[in-house]
Every structure is written in structure tokens, then in C-alpha cells.
């Protein structure tokens, strides 16, 4: 069977703030037998415009993404949020009958969040990574509720040698990031993330994992301000065995 070609949708946050997440994703995809390409015309998925009600702008960015990514077998993002925007929202941006509507739907059908792609599409049962740590996992909203990402990251993490995973209370409750929400309503966002870091810390875990960099930056930033001895990492860093970089928000 020829290797499937996967286009990596890096996501704007990973591109800017945490390239190691993209490298870890590529490593996992290659380990799973994929050929990975990184289309150069990508910037952001358009979610900020879409969620702000600026549908026209969102549509124009969606067209750009569709044109750049539709030629590949699969599109994979290390983010349930951006993944859901492409997989679910794009199709809603265009009127029925608009030729872009069909192209959006077709792209959406082959777009996946990374852990779900590995488990559900490539049938990956486990990873070869090793990490002596006690971790807890936060379910990021879009991945969980739009794309059904729940068991996949847990199952994969379960195969990391040395890793102990403890569920936190209300793991599926939003961390308060919400894209522009955290800027528009910083106080409410802060109250929400404060609950989150408390629930995470209550497990006794020293490592907080999630599949979305936005949530992770929010939670890591809060934990750091609160002086909690907790590190935050994207789940792919652990799965790919790439945990030698400083954790999110951690000094060199």
C-alpha cells in the first residue's frame, strides 16, 4: 500500500509559539507510515473571524486553506479547535450551490485532529515513547465535542512507558481560553482557568496535558502566575517522546 500523504496544518499558535509541537506531530505521522507535507500557503484557519461574526473574512481565508490543502489524502492538525473549524465549520460558511461548499465539505471529510487521526484512521495502537511522570489530561472543547476526541489521546498516553495518568475533576469543562473570549472577558476567563488549574493540581499530577496550544498557554500561564509547580505540554510532545524542551512557559 502506498504511503498516504498527509498535509500538516500547523496552526498559527503552534507555528509562532511552539514549533516543537509541529515537529512532534510530524514524527508521529511518519512513525505511523505517512508522508508529511507542509503547504507553504497556510497561515491561520480563520476561526477568529468566523467566531466574531465576520463571515466574509472567514470565507475568504477558508478558500485559501481549501485551495492549499485539498490535493492531499488527509489534513491533520495538532489541535481539535482548528481541526474542527476546517472539518465542521468551513462547510457552513458557503451557501448551498456555491461550488466552494462542496470543496469545503470534501476537505472537511479528510481533516483530522492528530490523536484521532492516529487512532481512528491509521489504527495506531500505541507509541514507543517513555516518560517517568504523573500527568492529568484536559479535554479541549472543540476536539471533545465537535470531533469526538476523548478516548484516543488517553489510549495512546496509556502506552507511554512510565507515565501515570490521573483524571481530574471536570476534565471536560472549558478552561476559559475560547480564542478571543480570553481577551474580551479576561476576568471571567481567569475565573474559569483558575478552577481548571485547581482541579488539575488536586490530582497530584505534576504534568498537565492537552491537545490544543491555546488552552495550554492559558492553563500554563495561570499555573505559573499562581506559582504552582506544574508543567504543561501538548500531548504529542509526550507521545513522540520529545520532552527534552522546556515545558510551556518554562524558562531555559
Amino acid at each position: 500500500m502506498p504511503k498516504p500523504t498527509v498535509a500538516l496544518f500547523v496552526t498559527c499558535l503552534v507555528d509562532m509559539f511552539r514549533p516543537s509541537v509541529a515537529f512532534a506531530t510530524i514524527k508521529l505521522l511518519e512513525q505511523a507510515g505517512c508522508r508529511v507535507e507542509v503547504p507553504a500557503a497556510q497561515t491561520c484557519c480563520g476561526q477568529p473571524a468566523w467566531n466574531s461574526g465576520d463571515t466574509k473574512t472567514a470565507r475568504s481565508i477558508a478558500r485559501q486553506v481549501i485551495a492549499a490543502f485539498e490535493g492531499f489524502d488527509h489534513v491533520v492538525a495538532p489541535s481539535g479547535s482548528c481541526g474542527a473549524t476546517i472539518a465542521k465549520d468551513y462547510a457552513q460558511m458557503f451557501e448551498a450551490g456555491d461550488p466552494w461548499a462542496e470543496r469545503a465539505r470534501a476537505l472537511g471529510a479528510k481533516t483530522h485532529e492528530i490523536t484521532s487521526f492516529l487512532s481512528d484512521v491509521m489504527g495506531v495502537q500505541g507509541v514507543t515513547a517513555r516518560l517517568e511522570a504523573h500527568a492529568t489530561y484536559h479535554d479541549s472543547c472543540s476536539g471533545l465535542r465537535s470531533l469526538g476526541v476523548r478516548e484516543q489521546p488517553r489510549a495512546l498516553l496509556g502506552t507511554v512507558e512510565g507515565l501515570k495518568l490521573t483524571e481530574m475533576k471536570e476534565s471536560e469543562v472549558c478552561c476559559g481560553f475560547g480564542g478571543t473570549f480570553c481577551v474580551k472577558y479576561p476576568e471571567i476567563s481567569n475565573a474559569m482557568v483558575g478552577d481548571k488549574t485547581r482541579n488539575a493540581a488536586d490530582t497530584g499530577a505534576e504534568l498537565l496535558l492537552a491537545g490544543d496550544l491555546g488552552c495550554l498557554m492559558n492553563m500554563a500561564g495561570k499555573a505559573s502566575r499562581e506559582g504552582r509547580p506544574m508543567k504543561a505540554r501538548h500531548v504529542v510532545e509526550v507521545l513522540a517522546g520529545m520532552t527534552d524542551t522546556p515545558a510551556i512557559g518554562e524558562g531555559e
Partner: protein
Amino acid sequence: MSHAHPTTPAFKSNAHDALANANLQTALRNARGHFVDKRTAAAARVDTFEQIRDAGREMKNHTLAHLDLYLEEYEARVTAAGGHVHWAETAEDARRIVLEICRSVDAKTVNKGKTMISEECGINDHLAANGITPVETDLGEYIIQLRHEAPSHIIAPAVHVTVPEIEAAFRKAHSHLPPDRDLSDNATLQMEARRILREKYFQAEVGITGANMLIAETGQSVIVTNEGNGDLSQSLPRVHIVMASLEKLVPTLDDASTVLRLLARSATGQDMSVYTTFSSGPRRTQDPDGPEEYHVVLLDNGRSNMVGTEFQEMLRCIRCGACMNHCPVYQAVGGHAYGWVYPGPMGAVLTPSLIGVEEGGQLPNASTFCGRCESVCPMKIPLPKMMRHWREREFEKRLTPSAARYGIALWAFFARRPALYRFGTRLGMKALRRMAGGRGRLASLPLGGGWTGQRDFPAPQGKTFMDQWKEKRG
């Protein structure tokens, strides 16, 4: 607090106050999780809960598609049973109609079972202004009436109040009772309220209740309560007024049972509410009790304008409150922050529909779109999608704050030009790294004070991925 003057545009400062209110935060924290766990368990007790949700959604979609037909049928049945249906296009109409009915029997006191429609119409203030005393008989409603507040939740109106606050309100209002009596817990408070309310039941000439459903086939209205106060408010006075909005209609008794199977499970995690009362009009000659007159005030107040729009699905709402019980924003700030009758996710969609996006536009923005509301809504209403529609309307009407508009425009300019975007992100990340100076995080950010006020901001790891990838791949 009166609902006549919405404070929805002040959502942000309302939220600020709510977060600083220690009593409120205690009350919200105590309530939190309780409804969530009970709903999860109640849903799990029914194998077919998902199918019932689908059936409920289909039934309501069908009803809304033929609303005129079912309204006609309903009115004909009520009239045949000797009742009266009054059509209230606006809240003002509803106030006028209710007052006229009360005056026609020279009412001094009006008992009220819990009704959100009467909140929406500001009935209490209107009656009081016209010399008629409204008495709330739902315990939660009674508490907030004593505290001169509006409900903060559609099924648990006093969820924001702590036990010591209730005790204080009771001691003040019931000053004729011995001051050394014990009022330290739920049970003693409930007993006292029950004794006081029992006397009031017999004084009222008119009883006003809401309706969880109106049944076209039978002309009945249905209310569910856990305290039985709905029954007493409607069967003891001479006149019973049902206040309901027109989307409460269901075609048949069978359909009503579908809704009943969803309602309490989603709301309080009970299989059924303790009392489910069907009323079918005034007392007949052979009936031992019941009101002499039966009136239904059917409120539109903007709902028929929602039919046929992207907001029509909101009219499937059965007011269970599950969306607010599961909403982390509601859990953080409580219902009063929303500034009008309907809080939480359902309010974020409904409020702008009823009072306009100019007034209510903040509410659909106060969501992270986490989607938890939609996932628990028994009627599968796509709440985030409809909030987004409101944001769309706001954007079209140029009501979106200009900073946000410019921000998006600037970001979009770069997002559509990958080469320029690369250049910009390269410079930006370099600057942020320099500011962080190897500490991995920033304690303050220019223009980012909202974030860094209470959180650090993680610094970029190094060069952007796209730059690194280019170097690697050439």
C-alpha cells in the same frame, strides 16, 4: 431589581461585580456539580434518552412548522371548555390583560406559581403599582421576592442565595415570629416559608401560573413543580390565569409525555417532578374544586418573528435550564450578570431575539463556544451556532466594538498574504522572545493587560515553525 430595564449591555461590569461577590461565589460553588451529576445519572437511567431527545426535537420542529394550526386548535378547545384565550402581542398587552382580569374581580392579592413569562412581562411591578399585592408561592421565588431581586436561574430562581442570606431575609420579613427560633438549615427555612405561604393561599382572589406546555389536542395547560405550589395557586383562587408564550404548544398528550420525559431529567436530574398538573379550564358543576374563571394569556413578544429565521430552533426550548447548569460562564458569574429574564446560553440566544441585538448583543459574545450547552440540551438546540448568528448580525450592523473590528481586519490582511504573514510573525516572535529574556514567559504584555493581569503569557519557543521547516527542507 426589575426586568423592565435590562442591564444586558452592562454584562461585563455585572460579571465583574459578580466575581467580586463572595456570597454569590459561595452559592454558585455549592450548586455547581450538583445538577450536572444528577442529570448525568438521570439520563443514564433511560436507555433510550438519545432517541427521546430526537423525538422531542422532531415533534417541536413539526409543531413550529404548523404553529398557526395548532394555536387555533388549542384556542378552540380552551373556549369549548369554558375558558378564555387572550392574545398578547407584547409584554405591555399582557400586563394590561392581566390587570383587567384582576380588576374585574376586584383582586387585592394575587398568588403566583413560578412563571418566567410573568417576569418577562414585569407583572409583579405592574400589579403592585396598581394596588394589587403579588405573592410568590414557589420557595425560591418567595425568597427573591423578599430580597427584591429577580430570579437568577429559570428553574432555581434563588440558586445565587446562601442559607445565611435566606435566614436574614426571613427574620426581617417575618418579624412577628419569635426572634430566638431556629432557622439554621434548609428544613427549618422551608417549614417557616410553608407555614406563611399556607395562610396566603386562602387570601388570593386570583392565581397566576406559568405553563410548561399547552396541549392543542386537549386544550390543557401543564405545569410541573416540586412543591405543589402550582396546584394550590391555581385551584384555590376564584380566577386562574395561565401565562404562557406561544412556543409552549405541543400537538397531543403523547407529545406532552415526550417533553415530560426530558424535562425533569435535564433540569434537576429527577425522573419526574414531584407534581405534574394538567388544567383543563374552569371548574365544572360536578367538580369539587377549581377556579370559576380560567384565562390563558398567550404571549408572542417577538417569538413569531423568529419563525422562519436562523433562530427558529430556539423556539424548541423547554426551559429546563440544563444549558446554564453546564455553562462555565454562567457558573462563574451567575444569572443576574446577564441582566434580563433569561440567563446562560439559552438567554444569550433568546434575549437578543426578544429585546434586540442592540440591547442584548453582549450576551452572545460572552461564550467560549465550548459547546457543553448544546451537548446537554434535551431539544438539541445548536446554541453556539445561534450565538454566532447573533455575532454575525452585530458585525453586519457594525455594532461590534471598533477595536475588535480593526483587530480582525489587520489580522485578516496578514492571514491572506502568507509571505507577509511569515515576515510579521518572525519579527513579532523575535520581539516577544527578547522581552521574555529566557524566562519562558512574560508577566506583562503591551496591549495584553487583560491576559497578563492574572496570568503569565508563555513566550515563543524559538524561531517560527515555518522558518525552521524552510531551513530544514531548503
